[in-house]
């Protein structure tokens, strides 16, 4: 795990089931995350993924790569284009800093509409 190492590209199929089940599992009951009629009425193309889920996916992307021993210390994300139902969310990542056991990983999650999420994750790995 060195500076410049890339994380393997990871694709998440944002099916309606995925959007809704993650919204409920993160206890986010806003209608735009589970009711397409209301989401469309409010000007969205479809239901879309909630922020807590995006945070969870970013964490998972990094720990899937770093392994279960790694400890997550920080998840800082900037939100862009919504990730709608039926979108494919593609994650890319790269190690941008390393100090001893502390790594900073830059993560981008992108759909066909543009960047859904960009951010950094700080983790601590085993010596």
């Amino acid at each position, binding site marked *: 795990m060195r500076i410049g190492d890339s994380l393997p590209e990871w694709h998440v199929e944002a099916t309606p089931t995925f959007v809704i089940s993650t919204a409920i599992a993160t206890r986010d009951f806003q209608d735009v995350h589970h009711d397409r009629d209301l989401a469309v009425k409010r000007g969205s193309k479809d239901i879309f993924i909630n922020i807590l889920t995006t945070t969870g996916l970013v964490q998972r992307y990094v720990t899937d790569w770093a392994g279960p021993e790694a400890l997550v210390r920080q998840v800082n994300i900037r939100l862009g284009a919504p990730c709608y139902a039926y979108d494919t969310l593609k994650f890319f990542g790269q190690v941008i800093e390393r100090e001893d056991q502390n790594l900073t990983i830059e993560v981008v999650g992108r*759909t066909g*509409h543009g960047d859904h999420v960009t951010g950094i994750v700080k983790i601590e790995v085993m010596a």
Partner: protein
Amino acid sequence: MNAAIVGVGATDFSKNSGRSELQLAAEAVRAALADAGLEPSDVDGLVSFTMDTNAEIAVARELGIPELTFFSRVHYGGGAACATVQQAAMAVETGAAKVVVCYRAFNERSGHRFGQVQTAAAVNIDNSWSYPMGLGTPAAMVAMFARRYMHEYGATSEDFGRIAVIDRKHAATNPHAWFHNRPITLDDHQASRWIAEPLRLLDCCQETDGGVALVVTSAERARELPQKPAHINAATQGSGVDQFTMTSYYRDDLTRLPEMGVVARGLWEKSGIGPSDVDVAVLYDHFTPFVLVQLEELGFCGRGEAKDFVASGALELDGDLPLNPHGGQLGEAYLHGMNGIAEAVRQVRGTAVNQIADVEHVLVTAGTGVPTSGLVLGAS
């Protein structure tokens, strides 16, 4: 020809890449070289085609390609796709270059949109007989042919729609396709809005952001490289009598694509195979009606019979002539035919998502309605 495609690479296909066109080109070329097991320093030739903003030298700079002994750019937009490979193969055969990369990259959806009226194109004197009259989009230009074809052969909008349904069906199982998991029915096609009658929205390919690159080298060199080579059995260009770009309306017969007939004759003659030897057909499908005409020009069926040929199921993955297993440009992405060549290479390698069994020969065609080109790629 004594040359083969030994590497293919592509970026993601999207509606908003978030990168410059040069970055897309550079990423695609780098991916193709990695696939080929070659380094940028091995490359000494680059080929693209017109309407690509990425200069050969700019791509070379980004990749760190030190020297080029061959660079070329083929005319007439999408019609040039297969001709880039022909140029590369000729360069390799003549010793003009040893390793040539063909590329195409653009932000066709988020940047300059190809489906809109190209007011700038009207300065071309040929276009002054169409654009000022209101005929200014590729869809409308193809629609003029399609209407006459329907009139002469009794084809219907549904006959065109069947091509879209097949492409989208194949794209549905291709994770790289923009329309992955989104098949359509003939009813969906019939319900889609008019763009330029008789063409509906679902007769028209998408606009895509992305890039594709192909690596060509000699058959000898190919043997030392990691991938199973896709041998270039034949490559040719074609332009027909009284040829215009998209508006060849002044020929006797408006139901044909004589330039594709030129390509067909050249491909069968040079490769020594015929239509019945083709295992997979990757036909240019920016607009559905011209897929029917191509089937006729290439000799897969007689004049006016394409609608029956298509309806027979021949173009399904388990049919006699599987069409665009990647989903074509209607389903996967519109990279002006380059993604179709990449699919042909995967079919020869045996690594395609919708792989056809025991592929010996794949036919690829380039843009229709314009001076065009074609390829026969083979396993040997």
